[in-house]
């Protein structure tokens, strides 16, 4: 789960990582109580908000009110701004970049730090980003921190502050099951102290059960996606018009690929997972209908999942409510013959191979 900047900063507070004085602003009335100039920042779960006009400096109360109205409700890359965070502007001596993330290959937390903070980190050359991996069994040690700090050419006081920040961020990364903690910029002030001006924090969804203090906000999901998530169904809306139902993420992706090969376009990615529970299948099919695809492509491989049980779930929905778009099915594996009979009786089109089914679906979608 991606946290908003202000939520990330609240966590920083818990770990004694300094952030500028700031508060969440819900209405113009909340704009008092901060020293000018302060910065109004759109709270959206996506980068690039500065370039999109979502960050503005307010010099006076009137200025702040005007800029607040501009930011609140604006659209940034598809996200409507519903929260604005205001924080006092601070003087900056140096800007650094700091992150801890997961290195999938080494299967270890990776600390990255650079003296070139503030700017787009992707344009910073590799040799200006210093990396250190931490053995998760022993946790962060002083030598880990010394190793990256020594490369940064910092003054003594500065190095102390940054070292403390690294070890606190690491603690937070571990205790809050983070996939990512990123501070850009992490600043050094003229008195040598350290402060986090931004926060990007992603908490591992699978670990949310351990963090009941974090209130999940499903901000980057569509209404149907939220509905599906509540039912425990993997359901992702895409740009195309063909609804894909398959079992297993790999097979679902491979099905979308096959459609694209035949010039079709997936509109929904629905992964049934390992279930053949007719009730779950029914719910999945109902969700799919609500997404109004022009064609539904059901691609099943029955291993442990029994194809005929899934087919019965599909049949139940169709016989009760009907369906107003063609459904192409391709069934393989455990009890496939029984499943094919059920689906044929329900009036659905059965195809023999993946290619055949993908082509039929793409042709039908294109013809509509």
């Amino acid at each position: 789960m991606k946290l908003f900047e202000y939520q990330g900063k609240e966590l920083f507070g818990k770990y004694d990582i300094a952030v500028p004085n700031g508060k969440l602003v819900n209405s113009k009335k909340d704009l008092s109580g901060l020293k000018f100039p302060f910065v109004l920042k759109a709270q959206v779960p996506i980068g690039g908000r500065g370039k999109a006009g979502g960050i503005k400096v307010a010099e006076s109360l009137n200025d702040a009110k005007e800029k607040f109205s501009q930011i609140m409700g604006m659209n940034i890359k598809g996200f409507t701004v519903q929260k604005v965070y205001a924080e006092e502007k601070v003087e900056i001596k140096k800007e650094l970049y700091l992150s801890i993330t997961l290195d999938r290959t080494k299967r270890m937390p990776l600390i990255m730090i650079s003296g070139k903070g503030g700017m787009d980190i992707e344009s910073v050359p590799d040799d200006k980003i210093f990396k250190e991996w931490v053995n998760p069994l022993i946790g962060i040690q002083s030598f880990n921190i010394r190793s990256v700090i020594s490369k940064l050419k910092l003054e003594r006081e500065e190095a102390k502050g940054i070292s403390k920040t690294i070890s606190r961020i690491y603690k937070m990364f571990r205790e809050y099951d983070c996939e990512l903690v990123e501070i850009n910029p992490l600043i050094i002030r003229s008195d040598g102290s350290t402060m986090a001006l931004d926060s990007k924090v992603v908490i591992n969804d699978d670990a949310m059960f351990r963090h009941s203090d974090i209130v999940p906000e499903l901000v980057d999901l569509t209404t149907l996606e939220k509905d599906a998530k509540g039912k425990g169904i993997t359901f992702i809306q895409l740009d195309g018009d063909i609804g894909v139902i398959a079992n297993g993420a790999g097979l679902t992706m491979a099905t979308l690929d096959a459609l694209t090969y035949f010039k079709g376009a997936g509109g929904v990615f629905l992964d049934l997972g390992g279930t053949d529970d007719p009730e779950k299948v029914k719910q999945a099919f109902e969700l799919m209908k609500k997404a109004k695809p022009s064609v539904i492509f059901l691609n099943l491989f029955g291993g442990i999942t029994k194809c005929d049980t899934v087919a019965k779930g599909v049949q139940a929905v169709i016989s009760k409510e009907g369906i107003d778009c063609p459904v192409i099915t391709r069934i393989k594996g455990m009890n496939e013959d029984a499943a094919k009979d059920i689906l044929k009786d329900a009036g659905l089109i059965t195809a023999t191979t993946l290619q055949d089914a993908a082509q039929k679906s793409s042709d039908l979608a294109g013809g509509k």
Partner: protein
Amino acid sequence: MAIFVDEKNKVVVQGATGHQGVFHIGEMLGFGTKVVAGVTPGKAGQEIHGVPIFNNANDAVVETGADTSLVLVPARFAKDAVFEALDAGVKTVVVITENIPFHDAMEFVHYAKYKDAVLIGPNCPGIASPGKTKIGILPGSIFLEGNVGVASRSGTLTYEIVNSLSEKKMGQSTCVGLGGDPIIGTPFIDALDAFEKDKETKAVVLVGEIGGTAEEDAAEHIIEHIDKPVFAFIAGRTAPPGKRMGHAGAIIARGKGTAKSKIKAFEKADVKIAQFPTDIADLVEKYS
């Protein structure tokens, strides 16, 4: 021969008395797997399909000589179960459980290394060496004994591919589901090394997915260390860019992680790539 597991492995199932445990103990026994014990705290003395249940992994290992664990426990208890198995002296752990917090996975993957054990998964369907053993939830009916090694990050897609191989009478030496999570115990590279050494394996099929750089790492490894023919399918070629972990993810990846980059890397390593999962069998037939 086979890789990682064969007819000698003695399996203890952790999470044996649940719905999944009972069903799959039956399936594994039917496949010929030596399932010697089950573990469910508080259920010692029971039997599932004649297999004795113990309160903890240590009792199971001491009483039955189990050397391999199959972990079917719910995600929040999985780390504890894996640590328990490794401490009991088990040398191979297959973790089927999905949705395990990745910090937990990171810890048990490193602990397995420290204990010199093989850990497969998490979030995987398990491993099967046809004619010898099956440890996991893979459907037994799709397999055929033979010389193709399969290593996959996917579940059902693996079944699909194995099934199409078997239909063409191309049997498998071992089929290992490596797991779909970002953190897994046995990546492609380890599976490739094992298949390279295995006398029975004549060709290797890799089933990859977008995300991470496991395929790119595998491709580089193949150029240097693998002489056997390798075939691949990559799912997600047309998936929209997925979750990006802030800028940090992009820095690690530096343009890697997309299907395009994976295919390019495999082509450079002379790995033949299938357009459709069911085409793999034709490719293997043609080139090996």
